[in-house]
């Protein structure tokens, strides 16, 4: 039916393919393990003062590229001084080589590095843009700060990821972030406020939050509420009171949490009223906050125990029981 030679030759081809893939697996793994070992050793040598000038390009490249190690900058610097023009050409080439060349140029302190990183942002390859953000995030320089802020504003990389990279430098960048809270795009204003939560004490941060508490965008108002909470100052209570009555549920929820964070005991009654909110998120935030407010929270919750609303009664009883003064089972009407 099927000639034997055909089955035999198919079998031989499959055998060879199987052996080839097996060799690939084992070979690639051994090569990887060796590379990790050798990189670590070489980076250590450079960090301890070895002279990179006598090293081959290949050896320098493998030390300069890859995860950041002590000694990577020395290797990259030597490569930049030896091969600058070639690296710059590679930094405008195809996607994969481009990212690596950009990293070496940046680590090596090339004067062209940030200009090349900026121009590479136009690429259609998402992985190159991700690489640019990561490369800039390694550098604690004003040029890196500016580039990351630019990427946050133009949205060429998911803003949540860019903001993650910006978090550790939020304190340093507070003035620029405060400026961004006036940006035309709500998403930029949102992320600027979110980042300012790591620098709430900086001059102008609280004022920006107060200003944005009246923003037309609900997400921006919620971020403003969170920033107000992070300021932990009591003089924002009137703003928080307004946000507790916001039309959007997540603004009310964040405002309720902010009340707890700033310890605004005078707002305990307003928060207790949220135990009857239509949104579970708001009710949950209100319960947490009442507990955080201590005696005033307990008092407000106790007053709500006889509320006409079932949600409010159960929420209040849960708060009271959390203070270990109420052990009756709940109605669980939710």
């Amino acid at each position, binding site marked *: *039916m*099927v000639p*034997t030679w055909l*089955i*035999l030759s*198919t*079998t031989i081809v*499959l*055998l060879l*393919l*199987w052996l080839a*893939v*097996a060799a*690939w*697996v*084992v070979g*690639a*793994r*051994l090569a*990887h*393990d060796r590379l990790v070992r050798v990189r670590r050793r070489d980076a250590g040598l450079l960090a301890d003062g070895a002279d990179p000038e006598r090293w081959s390009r290949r050896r320098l490249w493998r030390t300069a590229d*890859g995860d950041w190690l002590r000694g990577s900058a020395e290797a990259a610097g030597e490569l930049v001084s030896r091969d600058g023009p070639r690296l710059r050409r590679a930094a405008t080439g195809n*996607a*994969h080589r481009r*990212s690596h060349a950009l*990293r070496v140029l940046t680590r090596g302190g090339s004067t062209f590095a940030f200009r090349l990183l900026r121009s590479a942002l136009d690429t259609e390859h*998402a*992985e190159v843009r*991700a*690489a640019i*953000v*990561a*490369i800039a*995030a390694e550098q604690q320089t004003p040029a890196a700060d500016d580039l990351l802020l630019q990427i946050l504003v133009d949205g060429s990389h*998911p803003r*949540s*990821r860019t*903001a*993650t*990279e910006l*978090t*550790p430098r939020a304190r340093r960048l507070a003035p620029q972030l405060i400026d961004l809270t006036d940006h035309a795009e709500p998403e930029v204003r949102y992320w600027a406020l*979110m*980042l300012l*939560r*790591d620098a709430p004490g900086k001059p102008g941060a609280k004022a920006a939050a107060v200003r944005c508490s009246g923003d037309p965008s609900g997400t921006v108002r919620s971020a403003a509420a969170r920033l107000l909470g992070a300021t932990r100052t009591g003089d924002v209570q009137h703003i928080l009171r307004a946000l507790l009555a916001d039309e959007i549920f997540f603004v009310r929820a964040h405002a309720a949490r902010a009340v707890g964070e700033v310890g605004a005991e005078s707002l305990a009654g307003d928060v207790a009223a949220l135990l009857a909110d239509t949104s*579970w998120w708001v*009710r*949950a935030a209100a*319960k947490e906050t009442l507990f955080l407010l201590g005696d005033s929270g307990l008092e407000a919750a106790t007053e709500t125990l006889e509320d006409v609303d079932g949600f409010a009664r*159960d*929420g209040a*009883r*849960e708060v009271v*029981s959390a203070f270990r003064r*109420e052990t009756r*089972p*709940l109605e*669980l009407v*939710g």
Partner: protein
Amino acid sequence: MSIVRDLVQWTVIVCLGYVVAVYGAYGAMITYSMLEERFRRRRRIFESLDRVRASTLTIPVSIIAPVYNEAPVVAASTRSFLEIDYPEYEVIVVNDGSTDDTLAVLLSEFELEPIEHFYRRRYESGPIRGLYRSRTHPKLIVIDKVNGGKADSLNCGLNLARYRYICGVDGDTILSHTCLLNGMRLALADPQRIVGVTGHIAISSRPEEALAKNGEPAKLDSRPLLVFQHCDYLRSFFNNRLGWTRLNTMLCAVGAFQIWRSDVIEEIGGFSTTFTCEDIELTFRVHEHFRRQGRPYEIVALADTVGVTEGPDTVRKLVAQRERWQRVILETVVSYRRMMFRRRYGTVGFIGVPFFVLSEVIAPVFELLAMLALIASVALHTLEPEQALLTLVALALMNGLMTSAAVLLEDRTSRVYPVRDLVRLILLGPLDLVIYRPFIVWARMKGTWRYLRGDQGWHKFERNARPAT
């Protein structure tokens, strides 16, 4: 006699056609998987988990772990959930009316105390008998409820989950320390679009012993049956799911590790209790929902091993597990058959579901037919014995090739197993066809038969034996 010979010949030809079609589909999917793996690897070279870990912007996650009669492993698995390296998360363990000591173990191991907690009932679920919080681990909440099945327990956990993302896990799964960082790193890349994330789970007879000190999977099980299952998981994950991700046609976010945006789960009404198993049905439902509405979304697979789960250590238990899987696949595919070849369902309707039908639904029929036809061909002298043997060797090598491709994809991402384990996996690949596959064929046939009879039982396999402590 000539009619029988003709029939056998035609059966062989049809089976050969099936083999070519199915391996062709696998080959295409491996190509897509390799492209996806390369894309991920290149992107990952420049990413740092440290910054995700340190950021106050990282989105919190609620882990929900239904447990039912998991006393031997529940303490270890819960501990692994609590040791996850992630900025903010909570662990909700749902004891689904266990009849063994599961709750007692949890009570003593984590110093649980009863609490009163007012929660919303967004999803219907069985009655709750008690709620507990740990004195020693503030992240941990334990729900004790009346038995209602895994989907019911997940729904119950959802009612108490506080965060925007939920991660459904199995109670017998030991999660690696970095599973959430890796999973949420993908979700964070585009939180508006990525609605679900799943990851590869390794197999061990005792998962609680399979992690290294750094919290990552470190060694293969020593028993061949477990290693064959490990190969099976590797193939189904790295050869298929990565490719499905590339085509945005992920068909099953595995129940042992499934991250979902909770608003999406709410939108589609939670986990379904009318199906035998919840994970594959939920994934199909998410596709159906978003594609029908023409909204952009993605369900993605991580190219990382996120944990180790307990695999059956005897053939009987393996057959019980796999026959259930076959029933679940049949239930889901039949229920969502309207998605096949419909334009509105895009790649899911034109590639995903047909691929599933080809490789899973009709596979047992053709596998059995092929075996019988091969034997009959030799008996009727339409095929020489050496030809039949060579055909078997060729098929075994094809299987070996698939396994090696999966091992390659896995190792390029994680580099967790020592070289000797990689060699072991590769060498066992071709033997899979003759040692392991017959049991799977039998289980699938049994599953198909039980599906046709309307069986919807879980038939949970017994826990593997452990030395007394």
